[in-house]
């Protein structure tokens, strides 16, 4: 092991920026490579049974041989998750705006919202299958929407209401009304909170869609594919489907994180350290 002294890299030249980026990412890449190597190596070296954990290379190979099936199933379930995410988050943001505007309403409803948040909503999946049709993506969207609703609503509401009193006083000194205070202070102030909620919601939406599939659904769905493969001891297939679900989940999360970055380029967390 050689010890490298890491010097702070001055801003400016592109190559240096890229160099710094590479150095920032290097540890994560090394861990990733070590993880894959350990999986492959240990499974083979210890002779672990295939039905317990197949070697990674087998899983990737299975994926590649049936890539169309896996990708189609992944997209099918992703659409369920995305639909639920959009409906649930949209409704949550609208609700949060209403509750922030009319505090009395919030006082009346928040205890129930918090109680409902503690309900294991996934338990309702068989019921929504019954309501919207077991084969319809709508039943999974419904469960995903309900699951997404609470973290987005609670976070957005917190963002809209946790504004420094002086910020509001300042707006009132400019004779601003409620709508203007929302537009210019409360909504921009809420953005970091909203995105925190949305990022949590992407993960929950994927879980809801896949677990929703487990309770029955279209033959094209990823959850069904996982359940069916595991049922016939085709564990490399099940693992390949799980891999697809993981990649889609990560991409979904990253997409929202990217939008966050674009929407909040002003935010300190999106930049380097103080520029002084």
């Amino acid at each position, binding site marked *: 092991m050689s010890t490298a002294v890491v010097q702070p890299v001055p801003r400016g030249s592109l190559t240096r920026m890229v160099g710094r980026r590479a150095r920032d990412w290097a540890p994560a890449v090394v861990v990733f490579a070590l993880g894959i190597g350990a999986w492959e190596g240990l499974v083979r070296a210890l002779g672990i049974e295939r039905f317990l954990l197949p070697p990674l290379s087998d899983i990737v190979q299975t994926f590649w041989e049936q890539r169309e099936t896996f990708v189609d199933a992944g997209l099918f379930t992703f659409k369920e998750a995305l639909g639920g995410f959009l409906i649930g988050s949209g409704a949550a943001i609208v609700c949060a705006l209403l509750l922030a505007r009319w505090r009395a309403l919030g006082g009346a409803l928040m205890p129930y919202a918090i109680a409902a948040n503690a309900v294991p909503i996934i338990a309702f999946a068989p019921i929504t299958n019954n309501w919207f049709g077991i084969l319809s993506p709508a039943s999974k969207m419904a469960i995903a929407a309900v699951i997404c609703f609470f973290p987005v609503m609670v976070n957005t509401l917190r963002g809209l209401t946790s504004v420094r*009193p*002086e910020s*509001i006083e300042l707006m*009132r000194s*400019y004779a601003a009304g409620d709508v203007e205070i929302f537009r210019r202070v409360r909504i921009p102030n809420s*953005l970091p909170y909203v995105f925190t909620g949305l990022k949590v919601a992407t993960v929950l939406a994927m879980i809801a869609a896949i677990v929703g599939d487990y309770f029955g659904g279209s033959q094209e769905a990823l959850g069904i594919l996982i359940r069916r493969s595991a049922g016939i001891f085709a564990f490399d297939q099940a693992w390949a489907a799980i891999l697809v679900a993981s990649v889609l989940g990560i991409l979904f999360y990253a997409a929202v994180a990217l939008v966050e970055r674009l929407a909040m380029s002003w*935010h*300190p967390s999106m930049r380097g350290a*103080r520029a002084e």
Partner: protein
Amino acid sequence: MNERPDVVSLQKISKEFGRGEVVALSGIDLNVRPGEFVSLIGPSGCGKSTLLRIIGDLIAPSAGEVVVNGKSAHQARLDRDYGIVFQDAVLYDWRTVAKNISLPLEMLGWDRRRRAERVRELVELVELGGFERHHPWQLSGGMQQRVSIARALSFEPSLLLMDEPFGALDEMTRERLNMELLRIWEASGSTVVFVTHSISEAVFLSTRVVVMSPRPGRITGILEIDLPQPRNADTREQPRFFELVTQVRDTLRAGGADSADIPEEELIAAEEGL
């Protein structure tokens, strides 16, 4: 000069928080003439910040009459007769320095070019050239407060309300900003009501110092500060400066300047339902 009506006229102002549990202000009479620099000084809990907010129609008095520029405080607020500066700069993180300064102008409906022109003047006035496109968190506390002052001055209000604007800054930055504020005050010809708990700051800046005492907050003395204008670094060295500082301190002591139990900010926040 005395022909012009008072900028602020307070008559028998009192303020109770809660159901009369805390009497923040009692029997306040005060007139502020055009072009004056009046400091309100007193220990925490004497109601000076509350009084400033009553002048700005940000909270309502329990009793008494507030007249600003010859009209009700409410009308004066709707007419944007005053600019306000708080202890924290209260800049919006999502706006650049230039956009923070031009916020009131946007709300007044100024067009883009006129705003840009005005921002350029103000950035020069508060000596922040080159930082227009920075975000607030990239600035030091003193620089942030200068942005806040520029914003308050942007639409040229006749009255400037300042609530311990330099209270959170270190002594050296504070003294430098004191000088800048005086320069700006002289250049703009506006009237300033300035809340502070620093005796030397009050004496250095003001034409009059209003000394307040706590529980209930009331005025225990008003001192004319007859130091020559313009004030400069030498002002703080003059014997008269020290005499006035001593006078203010004695007036504070005579009023029973022990600090109060409930922080005023909490009462104000509760009152405004924030």
